[in-house]
């Protein structure tokens, strides 16, 4: 522990020396020292345990003082960072996720998944993955997906003989599909950060990669099933089938309504998200009334308010941080550094993936999208990747980060729901990380997987 404190103290001393322009700091050239100051101060606050949003804001403020930028501009950017209509859509998508989560709509999707693949070997694990894909088609929040499906599936899988850690690992990794399959709030953030890439095109681009990711995880379960003697799921009585189909189609219609409204040009992203919430409320009132208790409604509303505030405050601070980075010309420097290393597009794309994966390990998704998109987009465009495909690639990279320690919100929620430790779950996660990496490479180097649907709809 003493070593850790010494390391922290040394970083603090280094930052203070730079801030006060100490004579012994003169050996570092001006621009690199400013960039080092920005990132090191951010890392210092993060390690100290300052919330990520405040870490971004504080490092931006201190760097502004250091490089003599007006601090006023930091807070102007912070406020302007969320001053866009598209962010209203994020609030509504969060609300949609909360409604799906609390209303019990997930249970019908679970029954549909059971109907489709439940009787295969490893049925419950397969159901877990398929439910995440279906759930992602409405909610788009990996954390909501893990919490909602995990609460039901992990104990159920354990009772059927799956280990608790394996059940948690499958729940955690399958939530990645929820993030890629539209609607996805992170795609809207990317669309804004990329300077207005079509949200409709991004939504359509997410379907196939999400399905490929899900199928790859299912293939792994099917391979493992005879080795670990996974049981099959329970048979569903025939008379229940029509009701399951009807109710789950009703639930899925919310997702299709939201995505369809944008793709066919009926609504903007904001309008489509609010109309989606409206439709979800109608379905909730008409078909899930027994879950419409005062406590559930309050949980939906407070959860929406708190999550929206947290996510958008992160984005606001990331915009301020991004402003300082732009002032320091970091995007230009990084792209020239990478292109000076190699001009081979394959190597450039591999390096970009590696960078995103590493950053995803230690930072949350939304701020990384805001900060890294302006830096990396010109580079990948230069390497021949389209902005729409890069959106999907970025989401997968950062989504993997959410399932990995040390900073993995989805992993944390999964372990909390599964009542197990991160260490034990990580052992079960290792082969799944490998599978996700392979799918990531396929999606990076086979553009058709992402672009076939947007091209089909001329988006």
């Amino acid at each position: 522990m003493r070593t850790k404190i010494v390391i922290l103290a040394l970083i603090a001393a280094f930052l203070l020396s730079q801030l006060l322009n100490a004579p012994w700091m003169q050996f570092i050239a001006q621009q690199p020292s400013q960039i080092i100051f920005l990132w090191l101060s951010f890392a210092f606050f993060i390690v100290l345990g300052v919330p990520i949003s405040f870490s971004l804001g504080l490092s931006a403020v201190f760097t502004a003082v250091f490089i003599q930028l007006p601090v006023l501009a930091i807070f102007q950017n912070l406020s302007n960072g969320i001053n866009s209509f598209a962010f209203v859509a994020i609030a509504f998508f969060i609300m949609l996720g909360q409604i799906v989560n609390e209303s019990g709509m997930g249970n019908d999707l679970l029954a549909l998944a059971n109907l489709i693949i439940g009787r295969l070997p490893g049925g419950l694990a397969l159901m877990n993955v398929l439910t995440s894909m279906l759930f992602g088609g409405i909610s788009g929040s990996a954390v909501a997906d893990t919490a909602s499906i995990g609460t039901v599936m992990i104990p159920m899988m354990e009772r059927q003989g799956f280990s608790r850690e394996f059940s948690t690992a499958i729940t955690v990794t399958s939530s990645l599909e929820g993030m890629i399959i539209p609607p996805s709030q992170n795609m809207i953030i990317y669309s804004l950060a990329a300077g207005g890439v079509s949200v409709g095109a991004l939504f359509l681009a997410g379907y196939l990669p999400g399905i490929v990711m899900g199928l790859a995880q299912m293939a792994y379960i099917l391979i493992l099933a005879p080795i670990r003697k996974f049981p099959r799921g329970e048979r569903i009585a025939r008379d229940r089938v029509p009701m399951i189909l009807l109710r789950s189609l009703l639930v899925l219609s919310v997702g299709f309504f939201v995505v369809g409204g944008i793709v066919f040009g009926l609504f903007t992203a904001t309008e489509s998200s609010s109309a989606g919430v409206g439709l979800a409320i109608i379905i909730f009132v008409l078909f899930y009334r027994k879950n419409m208790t005062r406590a559930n409604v309050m949980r939906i509303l407070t959860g929406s308010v708190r999550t929206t505030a947290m996510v958008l405050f992160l984005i606001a601070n990331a915009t301020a941080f991004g402003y300082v980075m732009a002032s320091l010309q970091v995007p230009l420097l990084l792209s020239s550094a990478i292109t000076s290393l190699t001009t081979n597009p394959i190597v450039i794309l591999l390096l970009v993936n590696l960078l995103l994966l590493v950053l995803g390990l230690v930072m949350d998704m939304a701020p990384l999208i805001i900060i890294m998109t302006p830096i990396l987009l010109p580079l990948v465009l230069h390497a021949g990747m389209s902005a729409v495909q890069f959106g999907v690639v970025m989401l997968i990279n950062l989504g993997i980060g959410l399932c990995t320690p040390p900073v993995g919100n989805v992993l944390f929620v999964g372990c909390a729901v599964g009542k197990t430790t991160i260490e034990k779950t990580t052992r079960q996660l290792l082969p799944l990380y490998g599978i996700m990496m392979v799918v990531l490479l396929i999606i990076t180097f086979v553009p058709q997987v992402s672009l076939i649907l947007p091209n089909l709809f001329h988006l």
Partner: protein
Amino acid sequence: MRRLERVLDLTERVIEWIGIVVIVAMLIISIAEIIGRDLLNAPISGSLDLTLLIMIWMVLLVSGIGVWSDLHIRVAFFVDTMNEMAKQVISLIVFVAIFFFGSEMLIQSIPLIQLPGIMPELKIDNSWLFVPLLVTGIVTMAAAFGRILRIVITFRASKKT
């Protein structure tokens, strides 16, 4: 300390309720805008700007008071490995840093509020966009101060025992 805790708890509840009213209002305005424009051919002027403005207020206010209730996500893997004493000292530094951020937010918001300009759709002063920064600065400082006090009192109590 108890009085401050009570004030902060009450502020949190009030702001949370304001947030709930705002998010419901946002939804109603947005749906009314769709119905007005697409079905009745009568778009509501300024509805989008109003939705955005009240959302900014909601986000900043809830974020400010969120310091009191640990709303914001943070990375705890480093701090969690330390002993109780070190944890408390580090928490103290964290909330002092947040207090400083709140104070900067408050100070810098004043010239921003004085900037000229009008929101064309709503026909109100641009300062309405920056006033929430000022209020959030105050709320953040109060919440961080409350947390600092709580840490100091816990530290003193543990030292006595």
